């Protein structure tokens, strides 16, 4: 009690960002860090929030970074290999609707983040044990458990962000969280292959045990995330005590009956979302061996090329976000992104040009699409249905990823890489068709999806008059 009173008095005495007059800098710094209202403390919390998702994103793409090793050591074909991705997506078809509910009503944000991070850790450990015991079904189970935690952890991360940061800072925070996630993916791509070869050298032979040990070591990042979850829970509880702020909530209300109210443009956006992401993530999952076999790259270079999409996405997502915010005209940007992806896949399929170019284009297109597509949902759907719309979008995105991952593996085993790329081109073309239809429908109905920012502000002003 006394401790709390002291802290509260200290809070009232100093302003939010004013240095204490007369107090030496040494004593000022720790108290700024410990003061939940001050920027320094919130930066610490921001760092923890970013690291919270690091482990999950690092481990998500472990199979892609170790594709040849997994296929060789566990003796599986590509179809079974892609099941590692499919099993991650299956639980999220349902959990996308439940994430908000679980955080708001059942666990609370603090325990929710801890529980989801535990799922991530346990899932990765089971995945690694599947390697050590040479049981592929155990690996699939591990990915399933990992998937239960992974996507819901992202919801928890976002909820923490909204709770601690408001207004203009929030976009920056979301951007930083996304960038950190992408850094995690990039580090995974470039590190795991090297780590495997080091373990192989020290254990003396390749095999399922080597694979399992490598995955366990990679899982240490999940332990880091778990520590961050605990730290955040403690700091959040402390801030609630000191600042008397409420525990963060997602505020999402999911009503599945709202789905019948979705308009045609919204369904077209859903189709674009599904068809687009299935040509990015499964492709990256299979990309490393593609670059080794078609372009003759070494394992290290192939991993680096494969990670280019994430490397580019980290800095470009905030920049493109700014661009789309300033100019509006979302449909045109989506059209640009989808066309660029089509060009990129055609380059990879029909030419032997340096794949760095195609992958850079893919990275730019992927970042642009994310910034232009998701906000359009908010233009089409009233606020009380937004949670359902986003939840549904993510649910079918995961469903599409799960199904197409398996189909991609099957195509690769029977028909080869050219046919796989042509299949992806077909999916992008479907997305392109949907964008074209969206533009036409929007134009015909006089909709506001493609308004420039100025037009949108004029509309807002005319509504308030």
């Amino acid at each position: 009690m006394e401790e709390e009173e002291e802290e509260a008095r200290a809070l009232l005495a100093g302003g939010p960002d004013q240095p204490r007059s007369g107090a030496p800098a040494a004593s000022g710094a720790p108290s700024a860090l410990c003061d939940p209202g001050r920027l320094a403390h919130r930066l610490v919390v921001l760092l923890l929030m970013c690291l919270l998702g690091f482990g999950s994103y690092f481990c998500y793409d472990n199979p892609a970074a170790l594709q040849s090793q997994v296929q060789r050591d566990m003796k599986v074909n590509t179809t079974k290999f892609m099941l590692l991705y499919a099993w991650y997506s299956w639980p999220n078809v349902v959990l996308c609707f439940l994430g908000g509910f679980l955080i708001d009503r059942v666990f609370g944000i603090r325990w929710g983040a801890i529980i989801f991070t535990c799922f991530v850790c346990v899932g990765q450990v089971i995945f690694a044990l599947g390697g050590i015991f040479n049981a592929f079904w155990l690996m699939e189970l591990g990915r399933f458990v990992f998937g239960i935690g992974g996507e819901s952890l992202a919801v928890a991360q976002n909820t923490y962000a909204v709770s601690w940061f408001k207004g203009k800072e929030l976009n920056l925070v979301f951007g930083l969280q996304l960038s950190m996630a992408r850094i995690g993916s990039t580090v995974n791509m470039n590190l795991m292959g090297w780590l495997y070869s080091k373990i192989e050298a020290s254990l003396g032979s390749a095999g399922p045990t080597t694979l399992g040990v490598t995955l366990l070591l990679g899982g240490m990042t999940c332990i880091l995330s778990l520590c961050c979850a605990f730290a955040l829970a403690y700091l959040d509880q402390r801030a609630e005590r000191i600042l008397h702020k409420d525990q963060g909530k997602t505020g999402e209300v999911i009503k599945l009956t709202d789905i019948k109210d979705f308009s045609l443009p919204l369904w077209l956006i859903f189709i674009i979302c599904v068809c687009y992401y299935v040509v990015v993530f499964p492709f990256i999952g299979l990309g490393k061996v593609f670059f080794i076999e078609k372009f003759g790259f070494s394992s290290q270079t192939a991993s680096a090329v494969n990670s280019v999409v994430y490397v580019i996405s980290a800095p470009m997502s905030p920049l493109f976000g700014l661009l789309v915010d300033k100019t509006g005209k979302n449909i045109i940007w989506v059209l640009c992104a989808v066309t660029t992806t089509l060009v990129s896949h055609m380059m990879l399929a029909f030419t032997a040009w340096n794949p760095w170019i195609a992958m850079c284009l893919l990275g730019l297109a992927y970042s642009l699409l994310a910034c232009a597509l998701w906000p359009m949902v908010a233009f089409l759907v009233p606020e009380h249905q937004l949670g359902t719309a986003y939840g549904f979008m993510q649910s079918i995105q995961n469903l599409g990823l799960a199904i197409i991952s398996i189909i991609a593996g099957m195509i690769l085993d029977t028909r080869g890489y050219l046919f796989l790329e042509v299949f992806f081109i077909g999916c992008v073309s479907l997305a392109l068709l949907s964008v074209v239809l969206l533009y036409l429908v929007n134009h015909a109905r006089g909709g506001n999806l493609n308004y420039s920012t100025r037009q949108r502000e004029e509309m807002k002003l005319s509504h308030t008059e």
Partner: protein
Amino acid sequence: MCSCGEPRRGWRRCTPSPMLLLSLLLSTAPFGFLGEETRQVSLEVPGWPDSPQNLLHIQAVGTNSTLHYVWSTLGPPAVVLVATNTSHSVLHINWTRLLSPEPEGGLTVLPMESVQFSSALIFTRLLEFDGVSEATAKPPGKPYPSYSLAEFSWNNITNSLHPDTLSATFQGHPKDDPTGAFANGSLAFRVQAFARSGRPARPPRLLHTADTCQLEVTLVGASPRGNRSLFGIEVATLGRGPDCGRIQEQHSIDDEYAPAVFQLDQLLLGSVPSGFVQWRPVAFSQEQAGRASALSCQASPLHPTLAHSLPQSPVVQAFFGLQQNYCTFSLTFGASTGPGYWDQRYLSWSMLLGVGPPPVDALSPLILGIMAVALGTPGLVLLGGGLVLLLRRKHSSEYQSIN
């Protein structure tokens, strides 16, 4: 799909070229030597009931050319390939000469002036390497003593002759087998001729024409001498001119028919009109050949060899006379990690042998169709929808003038 000029040492990238467009147009059926699309193919095992039944004569007759393939396991497995410019040429075998120690002149194609091209290929040795050698050793590893294919005893091929599929199989094992390595094993050479162009269902699905025949080499059941032995085969061709030329590695974007194999290797035997040997650098370690059992195939460069260091083939000597200069290369299958012969004690590799320009793969109609729909539909919808909107706007603007 690529136009590769002179082959360079090691791996090289190709870019698509006008050949891509041309091959798209020719994607229905490639033309064979002298434009022959189909041939009348007949297989015979010449000789009399007591003769060694291990000589196969394949005669592929076209409208104004004939191809003779003489496959034989008298000595090491070998093939003599002769192309003539008439549909009436015949193969003449002098058995006494052929089976004597000096077989020169035992094999002739008459009329001799009609012979446009002739060449030979001999499979001299079965090689074996120790795959688990130290990293410092050069791949494929330390060699075990090789099996000379001249010291094999071969089966009677009349039993394995299938006129319906135009194929025959030579199967053999070493005459002297002290270690019993081939007690339950054999090395088989399956020869198949074709009457028209097509593509077999079995990987690596090499595109063949009427001017080619296919050879599938299969090693089954032989006991390897190490835990992870890599097998290989040594091939010799007749030396022509001062240097032996190179194996051309053609890289392409198309791996539809051999998943994850983007390369086609070929060796030209002689100058125009020339024969060729074509293969995909892949072998399979399971009878259900597929991507999971694909082994990489490394080809050594061609090096000139003198006749005395190679097992001699009576058939080649019978047709070409005593030859001093040969060019040999060896193919090794597999690597020390991944699938290998040790999985199921099975190894199979295929090649094409033929005359004229080697067949060129083209994109399948399915892919072309998907691309046409994928690229065309959004464009058409945009055009169509745009037109509709324009017309609607013109229509509605007429109404706005009314108060």
